[in-house]
C-alpha cells in the first residue's frame, strides 16, 4: 500500500530525470554524427555488429575477443579489413600483429567474414568507435528520488507528530480547565450535581447467567476456531519467501526474457527432482552477460545491484572476467530450499511435467512475475488430492494408456478419466 502512495511522485521524478538525461545525451549524439561523417553509418554498423560480432566481441569490454572500441587506433584500417575477411590466413602468413592477438586470446580462431566488404567493415568500425556514454546519471536520479521520497514521508510524519502534539496540548488544557473550574466550585461552595449511581453494566452482565453462558460458548468457539487454524498451518509454509544467497530474479529470466522453465530446470523432464540448475547452466548465457541492461533496473533494485549479483555468480563458479576464463576456484551456492515435501511423500516432477503436461505455474504460481521466489501452493495432501480429483489424465497419443483408458472409461461410463479414477488417490502411490 505504501508503495502505491509514492508511485505518482516517483514516476514524476523519473520523468524529470529522463528529461535531464536526454539533455546530457545530446552531445554524445553529436559525437556519433561526427563519426558517421568520418567513415561509416553507425546505424548500419550497429545492425551488422549485433548480428555478426556480438557473440564474441563487446565494444568496451573484453569478451571472447578483444574490446573493439579504439581498434582503429591499435591497428591500421587496411590490416583490419584483411583480418576480418580471413584472420587464419594472416596468422598462417606470419603477420606479427595477427599472431600476437592469436596468442593473447589462447589461440581461439576468429571466424572469417568474406561476405563483408570494406564499406560494411567501415560501418562496423564507425559503430564500435562510438565512445562509451558518460556514466548514466540514473544513479544520481534515483538517489534524488529516494531523498525526495524520504522527504515526503518525513513531512507526513512531521504533520502527524504536530497533530499529536496539538491534541495532547488540547487534552492537557481541557483537564486543567476542568480542574480549575472544580476548584472554583469548591471555593464558592457550589454543590456539584452528583451522578446517579447505577448498577455497573459488568455486574449486570455477570448476574445474567444466560448471557454469560452464551458469551462463554462464543468465546470457546472463537478460540477453538483460532487454535484449529493455528495448528492446521503448522508445517505449511505457503508464501515462504526466504532470502537467497544470490538475488536471482525469475521475473527477469522467465518473465522479461521468456526463458523456458525447463531450460534451466531440465531434470524436471526425466527425474523426480526439478533440479536447481548447476552453475555451468547459468554460464551458458552469463559468460557474455556480465551486466544487466539499463532498462532491467527497477525502482527497488538498481542496475548496480543486479550487476553485483552477477558478480556473485562469477565468484561462485570461479570465472575471471578479465581473462575470460575459469580459475577453478569454486564455491557452490547454498540456496535455501523453498518447496519442501516431507520425506514420506514421493513426488515425481517428470510424471507431472512430461507425462501429464502440467504447466509449472499450476503448482508454482506466477513465477515469471516473481522478483523473489516464494511458495505459491500450500503443498498439503488435500491440495494434491483435489487436483488429482479434478484433473483429467492426458491419455491421447500415449500407447501406455490405450488399453487401460478403454477399459476404465467403459467401467466408469465416462470419456475422460481423472487421475483419481486411474488410481491416483491410493496411499501407496505416494507413500512408500
Amino acid at each position, binding site marked *: 500500500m505504501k508503495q502505491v502512495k509514492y508511485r505518482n511522485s516517483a514516476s514524476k521524478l523519473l520523468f524529470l530525470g529522463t528529461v535531464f538525461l536526454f539533455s546530457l545525451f545530446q552531445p554524445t549524439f553529436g559525437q556519433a554524427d561526427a563519426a558517421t561523417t568520418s567513415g561509416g553509418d553507425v546505424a548500419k554498423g550497429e545492425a551488422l555488429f549485433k548480428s555478426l560480432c556480438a557473440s564474441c566481441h563487446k565494444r568496451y569490454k573484453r569478451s571472447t575477443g578483444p574490446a573493439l572500441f579504439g581498434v582503429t587506433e591499435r591497428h591500421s584500417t587496411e590490416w583490419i579489413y584483411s583480418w576480418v575477411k580471413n584472420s587464419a590466413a594472416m596468422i598462417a602468413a606470419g603477420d606479427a600483429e595477427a599472431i600476437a592477438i592469436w596468442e593473447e586470446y589462447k589461440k581461439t580462431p576468429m571466424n572469417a567474414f568474406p561476405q563483408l566488404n570494406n564499406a560494411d567493415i567501415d560501418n562496423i568500425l564507425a559503430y564500435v568507435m562510438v565512445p562509451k556514454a558518460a556514466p548514466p546519471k540514473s544513479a544520481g536520479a534515483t538517489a534524488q528520488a529516494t531523498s525526495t521520497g524520504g522527504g515526503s514521508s518525513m513531512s507526513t510524519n512531521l504533520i502527524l507528530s504536530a497533530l499529536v502534539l496539538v491534541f495532547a496540548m488540547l487534552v492537557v488544557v481541557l483537564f486543567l480547565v476542568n480542574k480549575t473550574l472544580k476548584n472554583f466550585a469548591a471555593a464558592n461552595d457550589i454543590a456539584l450535581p452528583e451522578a446517579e449511581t447505577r448498577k455497573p453494566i459488568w455486574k449486570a452482565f455477570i448476574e445474567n447467567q444466560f448471557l454469560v453462558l452464551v458469551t462463554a460458548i462464543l468465546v470457546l468457539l472463537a478460540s477453538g476456531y483460532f487454535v484449529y487454524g493455528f495448528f492446521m498451518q*503448522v*508445517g505449511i*509454509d505457503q508464501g515462504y519467501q*526466504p532470502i537467497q544467497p544470490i538475488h536471482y530474479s525469475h521475473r527477469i529470466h522467465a518473465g522479461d526474457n521468456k526463458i523456458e522453465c525447463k531450460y534451466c530446470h531440465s*531434470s524436471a523432464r*526425466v*527425474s*523426480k*527432482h526439478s*533440479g*536447481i*540448475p*548447476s*552453475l*555451468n*547452466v547459468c554460464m551458458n548465457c552469463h559468460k557474455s552477460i556480465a551486466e544487466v541492461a539499463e532498462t532491467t533496473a527497477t525502482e527497488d533494485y538498481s542496475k548496480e545491484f543486479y550487476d553485483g549479483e552477477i558478480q556473485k555468480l562469477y565468484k*561462485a*563458479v*570461479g570465472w575471471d572476467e578479465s581473462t575470460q576464463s575459469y580459475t577453478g576456484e*569454486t564455491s*557452490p*551456492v*547454498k*540456496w*535455501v*530450499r523453498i518447496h*519442501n515435501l*516431507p*520425506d*514420506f*511423500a*514421493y513426488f*515425481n516432477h*517428470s*510424471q507431472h511435467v*512430461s*507425462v501429464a503436461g502440467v504447466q509449472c505455474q499450476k503448482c508454482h504460481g506466477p513465477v515469471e512475475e516473481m522478483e523473489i521466489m516464494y511458495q505459491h501452493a500450500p503443498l498439503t495432501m488435500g491440495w494434491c488430492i483435489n487436483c488429482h480429483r479434478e484433473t483429467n489424465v492426458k491419455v491421447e*497419443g*500415449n*500407447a*501406455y*494408456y*490405450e*488399453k*487401460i483408458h478403454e*477399459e*476404465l472409461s467403459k*467401467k466408469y461410463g465416462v470419456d475422460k478419466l481423472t487421475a483419481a479414477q*486411474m*488410481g491416483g488417490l*491410493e*496411499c*501407496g*502411490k505416494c*507413500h*512408500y
Partner: protein
Amino acid sequence: MSSNKKYWKSVEELNEDSSIVETLQQNEFVQEIPTDAFLGDKASLENSSTSRRDFLKYVGFSTAAASLAACEGPVVKSIPYVVQPERIVPGVANYYATTIADGFDFASVLIKTREGRPIKVENNNLATSNGEANARVHASVLSLYDNARLQGPKRNEESGAVDISWDVLDKEVAAKLNALGGKELVILTQTFASPSTTKLITEFKAKYQNVKHVVYDAVSYTEALDAYQMMYGERALADYDFSKATTIVSVAADFLGDWQGGGYDSAYAQGRVPKNGKMSKHIHFEANMSLTGANADTRVPATPTQQKQVLAALYSYITGAGAKNTLEASLQVAVEKAAKTIKKAGSNAVVVSGVQDVDAQLVVLAINKAIRSKAFNEATPRKIRQGNAKAVAQLVSDMNAGKVGGLLIAGVDPVYTLPNGVAFREGLAKVAISVAFSMHANDTAIACDYIATTPHYLESWGDVELKKGSYSLMQPTIRPLFDTRQFQETLLKWTGNSIAYNDYIKNAWTGVLGGTSWSQALHDGVLVKPVLASAALENAINTPEGEQETVVAGPNVGAAARRLSTVKSNGLELTLYTKTALGDGQQANNPWLQEMPDPITRASWDNYLTVSKADAAELRLENENVANGALNGSYAKVVVNGVEVIAPVIIQPGQAKGSVGLALGYGKKEGLKEEMQVGVNAYTLYVNQNAVQSASVSKVEGVHEFACVQLHNTLMGRGDIIKETTLEIFNTKDKHEWNAIPEVSKNHIEYEVTSPEVDLWDEFDRSVGHHFNLSIDLNACTGCGACVIACHAENNVPVVGKSEVRRSRDMHWLRIDRYYSSQDTFEGDNDKKDNIAGLRSSLSEFGEMEKPSENPQVAFQPVMCQHCNHAPCETVCPVAATSHGRQGQNHMAYNRCVGTRYCANNCPYKVRRFNWFLYNDNDEFDYHMNNDLGRMVINPDVTVRSRGVMEKCSMCMQMTQKTILDAKRDGRVIKDGEFQTACSAACSSGAMTFGDINDKESKVAKLKEGDRMYHLLEHVGTKPNVMYQTKVRNTTEA
C-alpha cells in the same frame, strides 16, 4: 598384599603438605555441598519462591513452548553442482557393470548409483559365468561405506599407527626394498585371477631381484587344484554346468554354497523345475547339513572318512576297477543306488566332490571322464582359486628362519586366517620390510611395518579371468572416498611405471579384446572368447575306445581309489565350512551379513559347533528354547592338534553321527566394531589348511544365548504351508490329489475356499490396469538368501543387533523359512498328524513331530507380505494406515500409522515388522544408519521408517511405479519381464517370478494357472497375490 608400593592418582598427592589432598581425603568434593542446609530447613523450603508445584508449572510451560517453537520448519539448504557431470541427473539412477574379485567371491555385477553413490548390487545378465551375485556380493556395497575402513596410508610404530603421505611411504619402502641385499622379496596375495596383475607382477619381478609370488586362499582348494593339474596339466578348478546334468551325485561338494567359488545356482535350478515330466536327480553324501544337501532329493549322511570310501566305491562301481569294499551296510546300499543311476544316465550324469584330498579329486575327475559327462567343461576350467597351501606353509617357515627380506601382503589376512597365525606374526617381525595392502587395520595390517591402504572394489579398476576365455572388467563406480591407492597402482609406481592402472589394463587387453571395442567391453563388464577344446578333450572325442587309457595314462587313479578305500576314522571328525552369510570372514564388519540368518540353522550373529543328536546325547550337550522363546545352547571345548576352541553348540538334524561342524570366518577382533566381534575363530583349527580334522569334543560350563529367528524346527504336519510331492505322483496322478484346494462347508455343501460362494467380502474389480503377482517356485529356491540382502539394500531395512533379534524383533521384510520333516518325508508328517487318536496321543505325537530326525527332509520357503486381496490387517487398522491398491499391493502409509500393532496380530503370515526403536541416527544401534558414511547406502526413493510404526514388504512399489512411469514417458506398452522386485531381480535361480497377471501372456499369469500353484494358508481365505509352486522331489519311494 604385603607390598608397600605407593599408588597415586595425581601429582598433587606426592606433595605431603597439600591442603587439597588433605581435604579430598576427608571429603568427596573440595567444597561441601549444602544439601542439608537446603533440604533440612523446612521453613525456608516452604517460603521459597519456587515451590515444587511452581517448578512443575515451569517445566510444563517450557516444554509446551519448546514444542510449539518446534512447529516452525527448519531451513533446508539445496546445493547444486557447480559443474554438473553430463551423465548424472539428480533423481535418476545410473548403472555400471563391474566385477567383485576379493579372493573369495567372484561375480560380474551391475551397480546402481544415485547422484554418484553406489546403493545397490544387481546381477549382470550379460554374464555367462559367475553373473549371479550371492548374499555377500549383494551386501558388499555396504562394506564400501564401512566407517572402520582405513582412511590413508600408515606407518606402524611402537606407539601405534602414524598417518603418512603416499610420497613418504613410496620413498621409505623403495629405500628399504633396495637395501634388501639379495634377500628374498615375497609378494603374498589373494587369488586375483587378473591377467593384467599377473603381467604386472612379472614386470615387478624383473625390476627387483629374487622376488617370489605366493598366492594364498584363506579357504584352500590346493588339493583340487593339484589334482586338476596332475590330470590336465593346468592349475585350475574343474568347471561344471549342472543344467546339462540329469543326475548329479555330490560327495560333500556344497556347490550351492561356496564350493569352488559358487555361482552354480542358476544352472542347477534350471534342471530342478519339472519340465515335460522330467527333472534332474540329485544324490548327496555329506557330514554337515549344507545348503546343497538340503536341496538334494536323496541326502546320505556320511562322515568325512566315509565320504572317501564312498568315492572309492563309486569309482569301482562305475569303472569296474577294483577297490575293496569297506562301506557299512546302509551306505553300501546308497552308493549302489547312486552308481546305478549314474550308469543309467551315462554322459548326462556328473559327480562332484568337495573332499579335500588329491586322491579324492583325482577319482572324481576320472569318473567324469569315464562317463564322459556333458556337464563337465574340460575346455574352460575355473581360474578363481589359485592358492597354494604348501607354498604358504613354506613361506611361514622361511620367514621364521630369517630367509625372507621383504614381504608385500595384498588382499589377505594370514595372521587371522592361518592356523599358525601366531607363527606368521612372529615371522613378520624377522622380515626387514613388510607392507600390508589392506582396507582395514586387521591382524596382519597392524603387524606389518606399513599399511598401504587400498580402496574397495567399487572404487577400483581391474580385470578378472573367471574361467578360461571368460573375462570380466572392474571399474570404479565412485571416486575413492579416502586417500587410498590400489595394490596394482602401487606396484606400477614401484616398478617405475608412470602409467595409470586403467590404461595399463587397456594396453594389456589389446590381445583379449579381439573385435570388441574397449568401451563396449567396459559397458558390458564381461567378454567371452571362444576357447578351443583342449587337446586332452579332443583326444577323448576322437578315440572313443581310449577312455580307459586316458584314465591310466595320467596319474594312477586306481591306486588313488585304493588309498581312499582304506582310510580309517579317528574319533570325532570336524568339518570346517563357510557360512552363507560371512564366507571366509572378509566382510565381518558388515551388519547386513551378520544379521542374515543362516539358511539351515536360522541363527544370526554367531558361529557354532553343529553336532548330531546322537553325539550330543553322548556328550550331554543341550539345546533348549527358553521362556522368552529364544534358543540357548551349551558350550563345548573342541581340541584339534592341541589347539582348543570353546564354541556354543547347535544340535543339527542330519549331521552325520561321528562328525561335527564349525564355520570359518568368525571370531575376528582387529579392525571390527565391537558389535561385530562375534563367534569364535575356527581358523586356528584349520591345520594344514585342511577342512577335515579329527577333534575331541567335551562339554564345558555355561549357556550360550543364540539369536535364532525360527523357533519351530519342523512343519508339525501342517502340510498346507509347504506342499510337496514326488515326481512319480506329479506325473501320474491328478492335481487334486497332491495339490488339493481346501474346502469349506456351507449349507452342508462343500465349496472350495476360492469359490465366491463362501467369500465374506465383495471382490474388487482388478481386471483393469496392472495386477501384480509374485510366484515362488519351491523347486528352484535353493535358500541362498540373496533376496534377503537385496531387500535389505533396496528398502532401507534396519539392522537391529543380536539382542533384539533374540527378542524376535528382527526387521527382515523377507525371511526364508526352513522346515524339517521329522519323518523321512513331509507326507509322512501329514499321515502321522492325521492318524493321531485322541488328546493323550496328540500330546506325545506332536512332541515327537517337533523333533527332527537323524536325516530329515528339508524345504525352504521365502515368505514376505503376501499382499492379500482380502487382507486381515487392513480391516483391523484403526487409522486406515494400511489399505489396498488396485494393482494388488497392500499399501502401508507409515506417516499415518500410530503403532497399535493390531495388524501384525491379525496377520496369519507374521510378516509385519514393528519399529520398536529409532534405528537410524541412534548410537544405541551402532551399525550403519548412525553415521554419515553408512547412510550413503540408503535408497532415496524409500522412506526411512521411524520408531513406533509398522512396516512390511511393499512389493517394491517404488520399482513398479518407476517401470510404469518410464513406459508412460516413452508412450509404450510394458513388456513382460520389465516389472521386477528387489527379490525377484536378485533371484538367480529363477525361483521368483514377478509380473502382471492382467497381461495374459506374461510368465507369471501362466504360472498362476499352473498345476503346481498354491497359496499359503489357502483355507484362511485371504487370497494372496504371492503364490507358491509345489515342491516336487525326484524320489520314487514314498
